């Protein structure tokens, strides 16, 4: 399950971002963080959630709740330039039928937001 390695990478990013803001020494709590997962990223959101729950237990922010923002794959028809959602389209352009298209959105796999409760008085 590659989601486990990805969850470890997310953990690293969280530690880096917070460490950077408090001189390397982690402090505070992370109530939640948001990760964007494209439907073409090859990542299963449920599997990532599960992997995250295993990973966070062992990290400095065991409370961190993972919110996943799912990004549907958006394609652009090469013939008529119509934009359409791949999942809703049966793999073809709704206007001109079977024709080549390119995928312009849906490969995302990125940390977008970390909510950090800084407890330094």
């Amino acid at each position, binding site marked *: *399950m*590659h989601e*486990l*390695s*990805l969850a470890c*990478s*997310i953990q*690293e*990013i969280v530690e880096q*971002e*917070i460490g950077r*803001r408090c001189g390397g020494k982690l402090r*505070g*709590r992370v*109530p939640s963080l948001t*990760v964007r997962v494209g439907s*073409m*990223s*090859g*990542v*299963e959101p449920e599997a990532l959630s599960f992997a995250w729950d295993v990973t966070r237990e062992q990290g400095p922010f065991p409370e961190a709740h993972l919110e996943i923002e799912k990004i549907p794959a958006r394609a652009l028809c*090469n013939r008529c330039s119509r934009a359409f959602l*791949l999942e809703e389209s049966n*793999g*073809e352009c709704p206007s001109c039928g*079977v*024709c*080549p*298209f390119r*995928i312009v959105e849906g*490969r995302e*796999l*990125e*940390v*977008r*937001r*970390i*909510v*950090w*409760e*800084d*407890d*330094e*008085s």
Partner: protein
Amino acid sequence: MNTGKIRVLDLQRSVTAKNDEIAAALRDRFRRNGLFVVNLLSGPGAGKTTLLEKTVQALEGKLRCLVLEGDLRTTNDADRIAGSGADAIQIVTNGVCHLDSKMITSALEGVELDAYDAVVIENVGNLVCPNSFDLGETVRVVVSSVPEGEDKPAKYPFLFEGAEVVLLNKIDLLPHTPFDKEAFWSAIGRVNRSVLRLETSCTTGMGLDGWLRWFQGRAAEWKTAGRETE
């Protein structure tokens, strides 16, 4: 419990950035050596190792190949390649479903890359997981086989999208299955127009000449291109 100051950190950080960074360093190293590197991807049992056995046999004396074999548990695949006359390094992932750039870097530690013209990395047989991990390869080649059915490109478009070559393997089985070749290739064409389409049977040898021609041609071209950029 007193709560602290809430701070919202808005970011845009790729989760695979670290792997990508190590892969970029590998790619540099490969280019400096004029090495053509293939990341070979497929579902379990599509015929990657068999294809590589045939490939290194056919190219013996023409192209110096190094094969890296990714496998969940065993070293059988590397033994098979070594038996065919090429150097092979096994990477046992201990259950991890994909190779990553760090595993490739450690596998190549101390290896004289000058001794080779081409490297083929056989990824772990899996249609989904290896896709997220750049290995510093020059090209991706996807093997799909007749028994898997024609719906794989429609179900896993992201795998086929980034491939330079797709091999439809085990075509010797076509007479025995209702495989819809047209549906298979047109689903690939929709996400990847420039892909080279090859149909092979590693057991009868059918179609392997086209594959070998592409492989040799591309490796030679890459060597020249690498030298010119120096």
